[in-house]
Structure formats: structure tokens, C-alpha cells
């Protein structure tokens, strides 16, 4: 069974404009994806596509004016969206753990690292202080922090960015989560440190048989560290499939552009034609949202495109998925 099932998730930004009229930004419109045990799903997309919002919607941490208006998020069969705050708290940090992109500011500045690790452990299980402490040492070792016992008494402001990210991963692992959500876990870290952290994450996921979501804007991260990927555009997922399939045979015009826009492909003379800015989330066009910037757009695209299967577990939301002419080359 799937660990996480997200179905038709819709999140809107509801605000009032200068004339007090209600304005709705369709930030997420019908997100559907699954995560299985032992696999890493990479969610890629550009700024404003809704990647982080998807993670925040899943764990119920939206800031107003963002609000979930529809859909389901099932974790081991239970719908997280209809759950009480207390029930949700029993799952967050326990079965579902988050790794965020700004580790240094995300730690409690007034508690020692060790106390924070222990606090998370004891918030979710009946373990004793001593047991939680030894678990903390174990996890600090697992994430490759030298002198873990010593580091337990360090303050967050004493850590470097890379070290803080490791601590955050250790915190995420304290309660043996079933699902790990990493939101841009390496943004702001150096290239060489990024590689260390991602290697570590992948290693841990395989070893502990967790499911994981890595949210990133870097196709390189997805290509090298994920099993499956979901491509987001304007608050929707336009394509999902195994990393190999999607890179090899992108079925959606947007995905195909993304892949062609990487320096590697540009180097060999590929050309990406994006055709303008993403649509205004306050005034999404009818039908396919990619229509206005798609070079293959036709009459049919004014109706909402179906999810078309183009391979085994490889789907794309496009009327012509898999039938696109290869004009790009």
C-alpha cells in the first residue's frame, strides 16, 4: 500500500484587495501523487509553482492567507486534513518528519542541540531521558557529526550551515519516521556539502526503508538522488514518472523544456522555448494552464487536459502527452 496518497489537493490564497474584494490565488489546483515505502520522490518546479506549499499543505502548516479548500491527504490510509490538531501532532515529527531549507534559524536558539533532540523523542514516545539521549547520540553519529556526545551540549548559533542541516536531519530521524519530507534541503549550502547531505539522505532512506519527498528546483538533485519525480507547473503536477523515464521521454511540453534548459543540454545545442512567464494564479486560463506558453497549443487545449498514461506509472497532464513532435532538436 502507498505510504502517502495525495488526491486533488487544492490550496488557495484568499485575501482582500484594496477595494475589499475577495481575491483568490489558485496556488495549488488538484495535486495528486503517491509516495511508497523506500522510494524518494523528487518534486521539481520553478518559483511559485507550489512545491513548498505542497509540503506545507501535507503537514498542515500553512500560513494565512493560504487555506486548503479541497482534496485528501492520506497517510497510511488516514486523512490528515480532517484530523484534529492533537492527532496531527502525534503524526508530525513522529511518522512524518520535515527537513527544512533554513536549518540555522529553524532550531530553537535557546535550547542546546541535545535538549532539542531529546524533546522531540520524548514528545512522541514514552522513552526515558537517558534512552532519548543515547538515541540522540546514535542519530548524530548516523548523520556524520563528529564528537556527537560533545555536540549535544552545543548551542544552535555555534553550528555551521552544513552542520545545522545534519542536526535537523538527526532530529527528523529521532522517531524513526515512515515519511521524510525535505524541502530544499541543500539550498544555501556549498556544492561539496550539498553532495554530502544528499548522499546521507539517500543512504538513510534506503537503510531505514522510509518514504521520502525531496523538494527542489535543481534537476541535478532529482536526476542523481530520486527514484521518481513529479514536475510542478502553476500549482499543478504536469508529469510524474520514474526519473529515468521522465528525463528520457518527457511527455509534457513543459517538462521537455525544463530538461532542455539545463546547461548540459544547452551545451549540446538543445534549445528550450518557454514562451513567457507562468500564468497569473489569480486569473488562471481555462483548460490547460500551460496553454499560453506552449508552442504545441491547439484548439483542444482550451478544455482541461486529462491525465494520460504514456508508460508504466508515467503520466502527464496534456492532451497530446507522448504524441509531441520532436521539433526541439
Amino acid at each position, binding site marked *: 500500500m502507498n505510504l502517502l496518497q495525495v488526491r486533488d489537493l487544492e490550496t488557495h490564497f484568499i485575501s482582500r484587495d484594496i477595494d475589499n474584494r475577495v481575491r483568490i490565488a489558485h496556488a495549488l489546483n488538484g495535486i495528486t501523487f503517491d509516495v511508497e515505502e523506500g522510494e524518494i520522490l523528487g518534486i521539481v518546479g520553478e518559483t511559485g509553482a507550489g512545491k513548498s506549499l505542497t509540503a506545507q499543505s501535507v*503537514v498542515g*502548516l500553512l*500560513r494565512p492567507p493560504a487555506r486548503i479548500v479541497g482534496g485528501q491527504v492520506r497517510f497510511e490510509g488516514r486523512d490528515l486534513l480532517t484530523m484534529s*490538531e492533537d492527532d*496531527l*501532532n*502525534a*503524526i*508530525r*515529527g*513522529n511518522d512524518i*518528519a*520535515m527537513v*527544512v531549507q*533554513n536549518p540555522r*534559524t*529553524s*532550531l*530553537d*536558539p*535557546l*535550547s542546546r542541540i541535545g535538549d532539542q533532540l531529546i*524533546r*522531540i523523542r520524548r*514528545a*512522541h514516545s514514552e522513552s526515558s531521558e537517558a534512552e532519548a539521549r543515547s538515541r540522540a547520540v546514535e542519530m548524530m553519529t548516523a548523520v556524520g557529526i563528529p564528537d556527537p556526545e560533545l555536540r549535544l551540549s552545543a*548551542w544552535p*548559533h555555534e553550528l555551521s550551515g552544513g552542520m545545522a542541516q545534519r542536526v535537523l536531519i538527526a*532530529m527528523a530521524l529521532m522517531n524513526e519516521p515512515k515519511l521524510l519530507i525535505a524541502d530544499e534541503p541543500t539550498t544555501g549550502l556549498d556544492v561539496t556539502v550539498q553532495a554530502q547531505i544528499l548522499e546521507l539522505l539517500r543512504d538513510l532512506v534506503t537503510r531505514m526503508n522510509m518514504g521520502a519527498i525531496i523538494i527542489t528546483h535543481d534537476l541535478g538533485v532529482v536526476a542523481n538522488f530520486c527514484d521518481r519525480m513529479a514536475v510542478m507547473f502553476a500549482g499543478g503536477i504536469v508529469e510524474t514518472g520514474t526519473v529515468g523515464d521522465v528525463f528520457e521521454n518527457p511527455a509534457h511540453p513543459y517538462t521537455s523544456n525544463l530538461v532542455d534548459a539545463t546547461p548540459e543540454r544547452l551545451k549540446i545545442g538543445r534549445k528550450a522555448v518557454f514562451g513567457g512567464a507562468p500564468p497569473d494564479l489569480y486569473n488562471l486560463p481555462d483548460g490547460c494552464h500551460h496553454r499560453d506558453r506552449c508552442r504545441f497549443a491547439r484548439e483542444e487545449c482550451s478544455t482541461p487536459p486529462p491525465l494520460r498514461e504514456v508508460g508504466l506509472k508515467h503520466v502527464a497532464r496534456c492532451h497530446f502527452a507522448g504524441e509531441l513532435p520532436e521539433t526541439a532538436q
Partner: protein
Amino acid sequence: MTFTRFFLRRMMMVIPLLVGIVFGTFMLIRVGGLDPVGLLAGPTATAEEFDIIRAELGLDQPLWAQFGIYIGNVLQGDLGESWLSTRPVLDDMLDRVPVTLELLLWGVGIGAIIGIPIGLKAAFKPDGTFDHVSRFFSLFGFSIPTYWLGLMMLFVFFYLLRWAPPGIGRIGLMVSQPPEVTGTYLMDSLIAGDWTAFRSALSHLILPVTCIAVIAAAPIIKHTRAIAIEVISSDAVRYAKASGLPTLTVRRMVLRNAATPVLTFVGTELTGLVGTTSLIEYVFAWGGLGQYGLNAIINGDFTAVQGYVLFLALFSIFVFLIIDFVVFLIEPRAELQ
């Protein structure tokens, strides 16, 4: 960083400030339009009498020499003599310090005890009814003139209801004063076990303290709310929520992270409200340092004004040092700042 080094460094910063303040007050009074000689000599004085008085006050010497004399005297604890009370200014003020501190500490203390929880509650539910009411209360406190509030209180609680004594002094006219230990009637009567005096002192204290507390609570509410909201929306608290920590644990974390800035703010309030306290003393004829200072300014008693202003500066610096010290003790990042 060790405490000694911390302390020495702070002192190094304080000394030039003190010298500057002494110089500033000196210049202000000497160069300003006040003519103490004229005041002392009276309208019928002759030119010779003027010169004699001038020489007595050391005003016939050049300015820098006057400053040298003044600073030398200040260092010896000689702040000159008030010509209103014809007593040494230092003695005048030392007598009155506990009297004013009593009012100030009670007022700001109660203001903080009321203000901090209100600010926190408002922050935990922004834009709720409680938030709006507390915000209006806070704005109101910012806008109400201290002395007018005092007058209204006297009218309602003394004239109309007869619950409070008239706003003159710190203890009933018919009540004998307790033997002096701390200099405040409330404490001294308690020490002496004199319940009549205690009740009288307390009843005299209530109205002025309430006024100060109301005025003090307003900015405390506003800042506590702002600080708490900032903490609540910080990455750290959001991450704590994402980790499924129980609501109570998260709240405790918010409180701890808000503690230092709130404390610092209450400390600065303590020095800022010296002005408010002075006005309250003036209205209630409290007879403390504040009233003394205001009277000195109004009547052009310039040695007393100099002493008073110097005292205020010392008090502020002392409070800031204490805040710094407390922050140093409770804040792990203090050495970074």
C-alpha cells in the same frame, strides 16, 4: 567571555557617557537663559550686590574653570546647595530617592504584571476580539496625559466616592509617621508593625500607582505583542510545530524566546517612566525626587536641576547595566552581540 571582562567593558562605555552628561547639564544651565543671580538678589538689588552673589556662586570665573570646579565637586559628592531648600542638593535627593522608587517600582511592576500577559494573549490570537480591545486600551494609554488621569482619579475616588484620601502627601495628616528605616512609609510601617500607618500609607499609594501602571502598561502591551508575534512566526517555532511538539511545549518555547526582549523593554520603560512618575508626584504632592526636580526646573533652582538630571542619568545607566547583566546570564548568544 567572563563576567569581569563583560563588566569592565560595559564600564568603559559608561564613563565617557557620564562625563558627557555632566558636561551637557553644566552647559545647558550655565549657557541657557536662566539668571540665578537675578532670582537670588531680587528686583531691588544693586550692581554691587549682584557681583557679590556672582562671586559667591563662582560665576565670575571663566566657563572652563567653573566646569573644572563643578566636576571636582561632583566627584567629591558635593552637588552644591539648593537655594530653594537651602540644603545640600545631595542630601535633598538621597532623602527622596526611596520615596520616588516606591512609586516607580510599584507602578511599572504592576504595569508589567498586567501588560505582559495581555500582550501575550493578544499575540496568540491576533485580530481576535481580545487583540482589538487590548490594542485600543494600549493606544488609549499612549494618549492619555498622566496628570489629567491623576486629576480625574482624585475627582472620582476622593471627591465623589470618598474612597481615597485627598491627593496630598504619602500618609494621612493625623497618622504618626513610622520610624525611618527604608524611607518608604509602606515598608517602614510594616517593619514597625504599625497597622494604622500601613493602611494609611497603602491608601495613599493606590491612586498614584494605578495611574503609573495604566500609563506603563500601554507600551508594554504593544511591545510584548509585537515581540511574541515575531517569535511565533519565526522559523524555529514553525519547525517546532512541524515536529509535532505539544502546544504547551511550543508555548513555553515562545515565552522563553520572548523573555529577553520583553525584559529589556520593561527595563527601558523603567527609565522612561521617571518622567511620568514626576508628573504624578506633582499632582499628588508626593514629595519625592520627581516633584523636587520639577519644582527645581520650574523655579530655576539650577544647582538642584543639575543634581537631579545627573541622578536621572545615573539611574538610567544603572538600570541598563542591570538589564545587560541579566541578559548576559540568561542568553546563550549574548557574547555574540
